[in-house]
């Protein structure tokens, strides 16, 4: 029973990792950039959700207020994602990849420390108060699942299904896949690469923002550095699943969450992070392209 309970905890944590990992993997799939600022998008989403909820809770029911928080967080995160792409990454699209990578780390530092000085964010952690409607647990036999965990799972699942449908079924989705496959050829076929790249950043950041709200509801404290660890772990999840593969990121996130929780629960809580990063090393040794990644041959 304890094992099942830990599994539930792990899947709930893992689904948040999945949402963040999708952002990493989508951006990598299109522009071959590890967007290290993605974890900080999660932080921005969490802060937007926090203020949106505070503003809306007076005039709307808690469920509506939370829904509003999600929408606003996703919208602002998407906007921030696109702005970052246009201003920082686009000028470097044809530069060596290491330049873009260093820029991404720079953007991450700017976002974190920028958040420290912006008065309504600030360096001090803020407590998030969870509305009564979302407090409490469902008991199934000896198993307990908190309402927030259910919300996390449901929201992640819905977002992932919508994303998969979008990528597989719409024209824009088809164009994204084409750009990911071969950017130059896609451009020759009349696809506006700039537009597709922006859309990719917007979707990735929106999912990151949603993950931020979920993260803040699960672990109700927000601060400018809150995105670093989940961002790092989601990055590993993306590599584990095969960077560039969306289903891979989903599976990778779940595996990371479950592995971390089970290690804490049954081996030792001191080793949880060691196991998470150990997984990365093993994957890179055994299957460098990840679980579902395509083994791409470098064209000479």
């Amino acid at each position, binding site marked *: 029973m304890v094992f099942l309970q830990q599994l539930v905890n792990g899947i709930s944590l893992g689904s948040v990792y999945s949402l963040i990992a999708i952002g990493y993997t989508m951006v990598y799939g299109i522009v071959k950039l590890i967007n290290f600022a993605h974890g900080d998008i999660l932080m921005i989403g969490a802060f937007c959700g926090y203020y949106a909820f505070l503003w809306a809770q007076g005039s709307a029911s808690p469920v509506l207020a939370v829904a509003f928080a999600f929408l606003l967080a996703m919208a602002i995160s998407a906007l921030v994602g696109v702005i970052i792409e246009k201003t920082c990454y686009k000028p470097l699209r044809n530069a060596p990849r290491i330049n873009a990578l260093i820029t991404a780390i720079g953007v991450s530092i700017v976002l974190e420390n920028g958040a420290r000085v912006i008065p309504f964010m600030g360096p001090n952690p803020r*407590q998030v*108060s969870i509305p009564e409607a979302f407090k409490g647990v469902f008991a199934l036999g000896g198993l*307990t699942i908190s309402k927030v965990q259910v919300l996390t799972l449901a929201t992640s699942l819905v977002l992932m299904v919508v994303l998969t449908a979008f990528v597989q079924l719409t024209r824009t989705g088809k164009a994204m896949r084409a750009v990911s496959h071969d950017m130059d050829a896609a451009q020759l076929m009349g696809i506006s690469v700039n537009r597709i790249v922006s859309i990719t950043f917007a979707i990735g950041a929106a999912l990151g923002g949603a993950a931020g709200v979920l993260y803040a509801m*699960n672990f109700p404290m927000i601060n400018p550095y809150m995105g670093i660890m989940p961002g790092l772990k989601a990055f590993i999840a993306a590599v584990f699943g095969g960077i560039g593969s969306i289903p891979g990121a989903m599976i990778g996130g779940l595996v990371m969450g479950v592995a971390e929780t089970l290690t*804490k629960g049954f081996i030792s*809580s*001191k080793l949880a992070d060691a196991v998470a990063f150990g997984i990365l090393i093993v994957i890179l040794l055994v299957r460098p392209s990840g679980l579902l990644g395509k083994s791409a041959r470098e064209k000479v």
Partner: protein
Amino acid sequence: MFKKSAVLLVILAFVVALLPACSATSNTIAIGTIMPISGPVSTYGIQSRDASQMAIDEINAAGGVLGKKLQLYVEDDEATPEKTVNAFTKLVTQHKIVALVGGLTSPCTLAIIADAQKRKVVLVTPSSTNDTVTDAGNFIFRACYNDSFQGQVMAKFAYQNLGAKTAAIIFDNTNDYSKGLKDSFTAAFTALGGTLVDTESYAKGDTDFNAQLTKIASNKPDVLFVPDYYSTVSLVAKQARTAGITVPMLGADGWDEIANNAGDEVDGCYYSNHYSPDANDQQVKDFVAAYKAKYNAEPNALAALAYDATYMIADAIKLAGSTDPDAIQAAMMKTNKKFVTGQISFNEKRNPVKSAVILELVKGDVANKPKVVYNTTVNP
């Protein structure tokens, strides 16, 4: 090329010429303080800084020390040991401080004690309770009791007052304060005859404790000891209640301010602290009233300790009759006075011998806002 270096040289000369102007002038005595004014324990840092400044202002208003005014130089370390080291170097080299109030958290203070001892700066930490803090040498003092005492107090309270036979601990494996408390609680609780059913850990900055708490819940302890600072405690407490842990949680002085940073999940919990603002003592009342008048907030225990630490230093300089480090150190050893947080005299390890109070969190008048009430005092 030559021109460029000439310009640089001139600028450099200017900077060097300006530098001494920044440090203390001859009619002030420089005291430093390093506090986490931002970051996870900022509430402590801000209040401690303010209380220290209040003490300095009071002393200066009463004529200063040795005919000179005291000047407080403040640095922020964000509760990160590396930043404490940088701040300390800056205070010593640039402002030539003769004594330091700080650091606040144990890991931060531990990072600078060796340096303070070497440079002969009298360091009085108001609130670092880790046992090893004063081991670095005779220049290191503290205004609070240490963790072996605090852990014992809580273990005794759990076993005798709450009737707990089993206990579990969840602690921060990367924090000396948390580790020290875990050790002393474990030793005292088992010595009394209690059983520790589970000890779980996490790392600084962790937010997900579900796995550890699920495990603790399955071991059904009578009490759960959470020796960490308020911001982490409130996260642990929320998740503990969701995981089905309904027993009282216990904490130490890091819980100070928890009532302003957590909701009804901490109702029925207890923690040990250095003083209670509603104690029936004239000195406490005066301090609380003055602090409220100046900063419009109720001072927490760490503020009271920083206030005491500042007075201790001023008294020692007065008694020493000079700012010679060895003379101040010798005068510090002679401290024996009633301060806000109690009667303080130092033992041979420069730890004050003083009592602890146990505070209880009860359901407040406002929903989701617990109230702190005085429970009992434990003497050493």
